[in-house]
C-alpha cells in the first residue's frame, strides 16, 4: 500500500507541476491574468505531495519491504538502520526522487513567503521552476519509477555497495543535491527576470539567500566527499580530479562567482547581464554534472548504475533547460541595460577579476573533464589528470587569490590603491615571510611553494577588513566574508602542506616489527580477525608514538563484506593538531608478513577545517542577510498598519 500511495502522490505532484507551468505562463498574457491565483497554491500543494512520496520511500527502506524492486536491489535486512535509511538515496531512482522533492519544497517555500518582487516576475519564476521540475517528474515516472513492485517478493535484498556503507554517505549525496537544487531556484529566478525584463538590485537580494544556501551545501558536500574519499578509498589522496568530483566542483565555482556578482548587483546595481548569465550557467553545470554521473558516458571511480536510456533522458532535459535558457538569454541580454558604471580600482573591479578568474577555472575544469570524451569521438583514448588541472588552474587561481587578499578593503565605485597602502604592505610582508619560511624548509615544489606563500597572504588580507571596526557592531554578513576568506587560506595551506611535506612508507611487517614514517614509530602488535554486522575483517593492531610521546593504539582493517561480496580497506587515522598519521593494512604475503602503508601528512586536516570555515562563513552571511530582510519586512508592515490607521 505504501508504495502505491507514494506513486499516486508523485503522479499528483507532477500534475500540479503541469498546472503550475500552464497557469504561470498563461497568467503572463493579458487574457489569462485570472489564472495567476492558481500558481502559488499549486506550488505549495506540489511540495506537500512530493514530500509524502519521498516519505513513503523512506518508510519502505526503513522496513526493508522486499516486494519493492528498488529496496530488494539496494538494501538488506541485516544492515544497520542508518544505512537502510541512507540506501533510500544511495541509488539512482531514490536520489532522483530526493532531487524533485527538494526542488518542490524550495518552490513551495518561495510561493509561500516571497512577496518582494513584482508579481509578474514571481509568476514567471514559478513557471520556470515548474518547467524544470516537470522534466524530472517525467524522468522519474517514465524511466526510473522508484516504487516498482517485485512479484514474487525477493527472499533477501542485494545489499548496498560496501564502499557506500559509511556514515559519510548518509549525508554526502543529499547535501550536494540540496546545493544543486538551490541553484535551480537561482536559475528559475534568472529566467523569470529575463522573461519579464526585470533585473534589479531587489531581484539580486531575493535571489541571494538561495545562492548562499546552495553554495553552503555544495561547499559542505564537496568537503565531506573529499574527506570520505580520503579515508575510505585508502589511497591517501583527497582529490583525484575524477569526473564526478569535477561535476560537483564546477557548479561550486559557478555559484561562487554568482554569489559575488549578485552582491555587486544587490549593492551597486551593476553587472546585471553577467549575474543572469552566471545564474543560468550555475544550474547548467549542476545538470550537466548529473548527466555525466548518471549516463556513464565518462569512466569514473564513482560506479553508479549506468543506463544509456536514462542518459538520453537526462540529455533531453539538459537540451530543453539549458538550450532554452541560453537562447532566451542571447535574445534578451542586450535589452537589459548594463547598470551603474565603476572604475577598475574599486570593490566592483576586484569582484570582476574574481568572477573572470573563477569562470576561467570553471572553463579549464570543464575542458579537462570533457576532453577525453572529445578525443574518444576521434578514436583516441586519453585521460586527463593533475598534471593538467593543477598548473593550468593555478594560472588563474594565483591572481584571483592575490586580489582576494586586498579586494575586500577597496571601496565601492572608485578607490585608489594609495588609500589602502598599509594593508597592501602588510599582505606583501606576509608573502615575504612565507617565501623565507618555505625556502628555509627547502625541497618544496613550485606549486605547493606558491600555495604556502599565498595562503599566508590571504590569511592576513582576509582579517584586515576587521581593523578599526567595532567587532560587536560588525554586520554578520561581513563576519561571514572574513571567515569564508580565512577558510580559503586555511584550506589552501592544508593542500600545499600535504603535497609539500607528506612522507610515506610501504613495508611488509610481521607482528613485532617496527616501522618509521616521519616523526612516528609504529609497532605492529598483532593481526586479528574481527566481525561486524554484515562484514568480517582482519584488523592490524598497532602502537604508534609521535617522537617520544606515549604510544597510541590504531587498528586499520581489511574488511570483507558478504552482501554484496567485496573487499574494502578501512584506514586508521591518528589526528594531531599538526597533521594526521594514516595507516592502511593490505594483503598477507606468502611468508606471514603483512603489507602496511603508512603516511605522515602534516596539516592535511586544514583542508577540511578550511572547507568547514568557508561553509560557516556562508551560513553567517545567510543569517545576516535573512535577518536584515526580516527586519525590513517588519518595519514595512508597521508603516502600512499606521497608514491604514490614518485612512480609518
Amino acid at each position: 500500500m505504501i508504495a502505491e500511495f507514494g506513486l499516486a502522490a508523485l503522479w499528483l505532484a507532477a500534475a500540479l507541476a503541469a498546472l503550475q507551468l500552464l497557469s504561470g505562463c498563461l497568467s503572463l498574457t493579458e487574457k489569462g491574468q485570472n489564472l495567476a491565483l492558481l500558481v502559488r497554491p499549486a506550488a505549495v500543494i506540489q511540495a506537500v505531495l512530493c514530500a509524502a512520496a519521498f516519505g513513503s520511500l523512506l518508510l519502505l527502506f526503513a522496513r526493508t519491504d522486499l516486494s519493492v524492486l528498488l529496496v530488494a536491489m539496494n538494501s538488506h535486512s541485516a544492515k544497520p538502520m542508518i544505512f537502510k535509511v541512507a540506501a533510500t538515496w544511495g541509488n539512482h531512482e531514490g536520489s532522483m526522487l530526493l532531487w524533485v522533492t527538494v526542488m518542490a519544497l524550495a518552490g513551495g517555500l518561495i510561493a509561500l513567503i516571497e512577496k518582494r518582487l513584482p508579481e509578474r516576475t514571481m509568476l514567471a519564476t514559478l513557471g520556470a521552476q515548474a518547467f524544470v521540475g516537470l522534466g524530472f517528474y517525467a524522468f522519474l515516472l517514465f524511466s526510473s519509477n522508484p516504487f516498482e513492485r517485485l512479484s514474487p517478493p525477493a527472499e533477501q535484498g542485494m545489499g548496498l555497495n560496501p564502499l557506500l556503507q559509511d556514515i559519510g554517505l548518509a549525508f554526502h549525496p543529499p547535501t550536494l543535491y540540496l546545493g544543486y537544487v538551490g541553484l535551480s531556484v537561482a536559475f528559475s529566478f534568472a529566467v523569470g527576470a529575463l522573461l519579464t525584463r526585470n533585473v534589479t538590485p531587489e531581484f539580486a537580494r531575493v535571489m541571494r539567500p538561495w545562492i548562499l544556501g546552495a553554495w553552503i551545501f555544495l561547499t559542505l558536500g564537496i568537503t565531506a566527499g573529499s574527506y570520505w574519499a580520503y579515508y575510505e578509498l585508502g589511497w591517501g589522496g583527497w582529490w583525484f580530479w575524477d569526473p564526478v568530483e569535477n561535476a560537483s566542483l564546477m557548479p561550486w565555482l559557478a555559484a561562487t562567482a554568482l554569489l559575488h556578482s549578485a552582491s555587486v548587483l544587490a549593492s551597486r546595481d551593476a553587472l546585471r547581464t553577467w549575474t543572469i548569465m552566471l545564474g543560468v550557467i550555475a544550474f547548467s553545470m549542476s545538470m550537466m554534472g548529473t548527466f555525466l554521473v548518471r549516463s556513464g558516458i565518462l569512466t569514473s571511480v564513482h560506479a553508479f548504475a549506468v543506463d544509456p536510456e536514462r542518459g538520453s533522458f537526462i540529455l533531453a532535459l539538459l537540451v530543453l533547460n539549458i538550450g532554452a535558457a541560453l537562447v532566451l538569454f542571447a535574445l534578451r541580454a542586450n535589452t537589459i541595460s548594463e547598470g551603474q558604471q565603476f572604475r577598475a580600482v574599486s570593490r566592483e573591479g576586484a569582484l570582476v577579476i574574481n568572477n573572470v578568474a573563477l569562470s576561467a577555472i570553471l572553463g579549464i575544469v570543464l575542458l579537462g573533464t570533457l576532453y577525453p570524451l572529445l578525443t574518444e569521438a576521434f578514436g583516441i583514448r586519453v585521460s586527463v589528470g593533475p598534471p593538467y588541472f593543477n598548473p593550468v588552474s593555478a594560472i588563474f587561481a594565483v591572481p584571483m587569490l592575490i586580489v582576494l587578499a586586498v579586494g575586500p578593503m577597496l571601496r565601492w565605485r572608485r578607490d585608489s590603491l594609495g588609500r589602502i597602502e598599509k594593508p597592501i604592505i602588510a599582505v606583501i610582508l606576509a608573502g615575504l615571510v612565507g617565501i623565507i619560511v618555505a625556502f628555509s624548509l627547502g625541497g618544496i615544489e613550485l606549486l605547493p611553494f606558491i600555495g604556502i606563500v599565498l595562503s599566508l597572504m590571504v590569511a592576513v588580507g582576509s582579517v584586515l577588513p576587521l581593523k578599526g571596526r567595532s567587532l560587536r557592531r560588525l554586520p554578520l554578513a561581513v563576519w561571514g566574508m572574513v571567515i569564508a576568506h580565512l577558510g580559503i587560506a586555511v584550506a589552501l595551506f592544508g593542500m600545499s602542506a600535504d603535497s609539500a611535506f607528506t612522507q610515506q612508507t610501504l613495508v611488509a611487517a610481521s607482528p613485532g616489527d617496527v616501522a618509521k614514517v616521519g616523526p612516528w614509530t609504529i609497532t605492529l602488535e598483532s593481526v586479528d580477525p574481527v566481525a561486524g554486522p554484515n562484514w568480517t575483517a582482519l584488523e592490524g593492531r598497532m602502537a604508534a608514538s609521535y617522537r617520544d610521546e606515549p604510544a597510541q593504539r590504531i587498528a586499520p582493517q581489511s574488511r570483507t563484506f558478504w552482501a554484496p561480496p567485496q573487499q574494502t580497506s578501512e584506514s586508521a587515522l591518528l589526528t594531531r593538531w599538526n597533521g594526521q598519521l594514516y595507516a592502511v593494512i593490505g594483503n598477507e604475503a606468502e611468508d606471514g608478513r603483512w603489507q602496511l602503508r603508512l603516511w605522515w601528512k602534516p596539516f592535511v586536516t586544514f583542508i577540511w577545517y578550511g572547507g568547514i570555515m568557508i561553509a560557516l562563513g556562508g551560513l553567517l552571511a545567510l543569517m545576516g542577510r535573512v535577518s536584515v530582510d526580516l527586519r525590513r519586512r517588519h518595519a514595512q508592515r508597521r508603516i502600512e498598519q499606521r497608514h491604514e490607521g490614518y485612512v480609518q
Partner: protein
Amino acid sequence: MKGFRIGLWLIVAVALGVLALFATQLSKPKDDLVRSQMIGKPVPQFKLDAIVPDRPGLSSADLADGKPKLLNIFASWCVPCAAEAPQLAALEAQGVNIVGVAIRDKPADASQFLQLYGNPYSRIGADNLSAVQLAIGSSGVPESFVVDGKGIIRYQHIGDIQDRDVPVLLQKLREAGQ
C-alpha cells in the same frame, strides 16, 4: 554592442556543440576494452619462476626462439579462464605452442585448476605482482597474445577465447609464423 551579441550566440553555439558531443557519444556502444599499446613491439624483458612442478617457468627469451606462440594470461581464481579451457585444448591439438602466465596465484590452486580443466601450456610463469601482465599491456584476466618468433607482440585477444575466436587466432599465428 555587436561583439557582445556575437559573444552571446557563441556561448549558445558552444553549449549546443557540447550537447551534440554528448548525444553522439551516448549513442555509441561503450567500448570498455583497454587495448595494449605494445602491439608491434617486442615483449619486455622478464623472467618468471615456475608455478607447478611439471612445467618450467617463463622468460622473455623463451618467446624469441623462432617459433610463434600464444601467450595466455590466466588464473585459477578466474571463472572465464575455466570457460576458455576447451578452446585452448583445441588450439593445442592444432599444434599451437601455448605458454601461460598465472596471475596472483598459489601453486596448490594452480595445480588443482590444471587437473580439473586440462593443461595446454608448455611453460607457465608465476606473475605474483601482475608485473609482467602490466608490462605487456594486459588489463584483465583472461587475455591472450600472439607473439611471433622474434618475440614481437602481434595480436591481442581480450576476454575468454570462444569457439568463433579459434580460427581467428590460428590465422594470426600463421601470419606471425611467416
